[in-house]
């Protein structure tokens, strides 16, 4: 009997994101139809854009890379019951640090320079997360507003530094000086002829980070305590766990991940920091974490889905009259259904009396 309860609640966990995706695609199809376009053609175009050929497939993986990491950055504190909406700002700070370290210190061997740049990125993100973390752990101020404010402040600081201080002269768009070769993450296109997608080692690192997060959560004492605090903070306190300290720790770790997400973009994808390089990777990370149910594997899969949708959206706007932004709407609707998971359950599950 107990076994049945276990697998049915696990099945539920899987059904909700799948149900949300299905419902989201359905609503999206309705919207597309209302625009006078053929939904099936549109979704076909999306698919072709994401996976149509090898280059596009790599492009999808490239687009998914930053949101794998930002998704993990959001999922981790969620496990402790915290909502880190500030991943966007933390990523920007990490990117900034990576850009500064990466474009200076010439003469350092790659073995030192690259890790140093990534470390700087991690630190940048961590420090940016520290302030709201402290305010939450010690003062109990809800992290949602503070992290959102930090996002705006990060935007402002970045804008100032990139435009006024660090700007590479002679460029049309404001961007930082190029990252030196010793701090670059290798791109696969360097070894594959005919490939334009800028998939780089950062993708592999992202997957490794996912494994690391899994390992952290389920194989370490820190992860054990994080999960305990998230599931039942009271019982955790009774068991002797230092709850405020765990809150700060998990927020800082989240900042580290966000910073690393920024590092991939700067050291691998772009090799410079151009203002506006992020179309909201931090926020997509929130969506991806919710859809992936805060589990590293779920986050990777959800990130791949969202990456595919974004990549596909570009192709869609080329081949139809449908703007690429329909993808953003689709994603938002899917997330809405994930948030309102009770609706999904009500629709998808057969009538259950007194469900678990």
């Amino acid at each position: 009997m107990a076994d049945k309860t276990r697998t049915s609640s696990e099945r539920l966990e899987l059904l909700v994101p799948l149900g949300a995706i299905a419902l989201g695609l359905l609503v999206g199809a309705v919207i597309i139809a209302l625009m006078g376009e053929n939904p099936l053609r549109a979704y076909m175009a999306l698919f072709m854009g994401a996976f149509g050929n090898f280059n596009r497939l790599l492009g999808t993986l490239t687009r998914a890379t930053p949101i794998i990491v930002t998704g993990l950055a959001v999922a981790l504190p969620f496990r402790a019951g915290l909502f880190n909406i500030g991943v966007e700002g933390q990523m920007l700070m990490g990117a900034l640090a990576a850009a500064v370290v990466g474009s200076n210190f010439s003469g350092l061997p790659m073995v030192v320079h690259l890790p140093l740049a990534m470390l700087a990125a991690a630190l940048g993100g961590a420090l940016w997360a520290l302030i709201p973390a402290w305010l939450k752990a010690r003062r109990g101020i809800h992290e949602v507003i503070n992290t959102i404010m930090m996002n705006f402040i990060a935007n402002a600081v970045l804008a100032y530094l990139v435009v006024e201080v660090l700007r590479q002269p002679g460029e049309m768009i404001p961007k930082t000086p190029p990252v030196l070769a010793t701090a670059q993450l290798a791109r696969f296109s360097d070894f594959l002829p005919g490939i334009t997608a800028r998939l780089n080692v950062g993708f592999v690192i992202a997957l490794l980070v996912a494994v690391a997060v899994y390992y952290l959560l389920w194989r370490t004492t820190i992860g054990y305590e994080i999960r305990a605090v998230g599931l039942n903070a009271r019982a955790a306190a009774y068991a002797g766990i230092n709850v405020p300290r765990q809150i700060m720790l998990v927020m800082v770790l989240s900042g580290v991940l966000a910073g690393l997400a920024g590092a991939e973009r700067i050291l691998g994808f772009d090799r410079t920091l151009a203002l506006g390089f992020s179309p909201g990777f931090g926020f997509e990370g929130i969506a991806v974490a919710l859809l992936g149910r805060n589990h590293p594997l779920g986050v990777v899969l959800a990130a791949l889905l969202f990456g595919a949708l974004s990549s596909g959206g570009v192709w869609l706007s080329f081949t139809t009259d449908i703007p690429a932004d329909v993808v953003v709407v689709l994603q938002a609707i899917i997330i809405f259904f994930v948030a309102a998971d009770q609706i999904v359950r009500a629709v998808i599950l057969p009538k259950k009396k007194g469900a678990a």
Partner: protein
Amino acid sequence: MGSVFDITLLMATIRSATPLVIAALGGLFAERSGVVNIALEGKMLIGAFAAVVVAFYTGNPWLGVLAALLTGALMAAILAVVSIKYSANQVVSGVAINMLAAGLTVFLMHVFFGTAGTSPSVERLPTLGLFTPIVYLAPVLVALTFVVLYRTPWGLRIRAVGEHPKAAATVGVNVAATRYVCVVLSGMFAGLAGAHLSIGTLSVFVRDMTAGRGFIALAALIFGKWHPLGALAAALLFGFSEALQIRLQGGGLPTQLIQAVPYIFTMVVLAGFVGRATAPAALGEPFKEE
């Protein structure tokens, strides 16, 4: 620097404070009844957009305002159903609504206008005297909110539901219905605030034009201790910081950093005051009827 502080700064403050105070009043109703209102930002954005779209197609900005009220109410109604009937996590639902609003507005801007960043110009609200009408409406709304909340039976029940829903239920107050009404009302207020941003000040819609004002309005609400007059004072303060920031640009200090001032200010205020501010006691807790 003496030329910075003059009458035009005062007018700019009032203009900047208007959407903040109106949105904050909307948030007031919802939060006073016990429902967290993270989605003010999204509702403002949708309202701003709807106002421009309708003004574009009808040439009548007043109809645009009406559209803003209706779409804000609609978005809020969706949030209300999800949070109240289905007991979803109010913060997560709010964030989802914000994302939906951001995505929808950009997408629909493409669909309706074929543009990516800015909509075409529309007929703006007429300037009456110094300001556009919504600015004059703001203090009226403050007064109305005060009267409703503190001088009517309905206001008494709203406050009761937010403090101790069980106590209200035992004397026969319908907790769910009260909350639904308040959340929808907050959507209308937020929509109105958005309309001011688009057709009350500029005459266009710009993507993400709310720029966090919904959250600043929420901070004003908290700083104002969930009281209409407090929210007004706080909104004026935040409006001042925004007006000052615009004024200081080009005055030698880095533009971009000055733009951060309102947000830094908000954080400082929250850090200093939230510990002592008393939220409605049942804020954020879903109420399950027996």
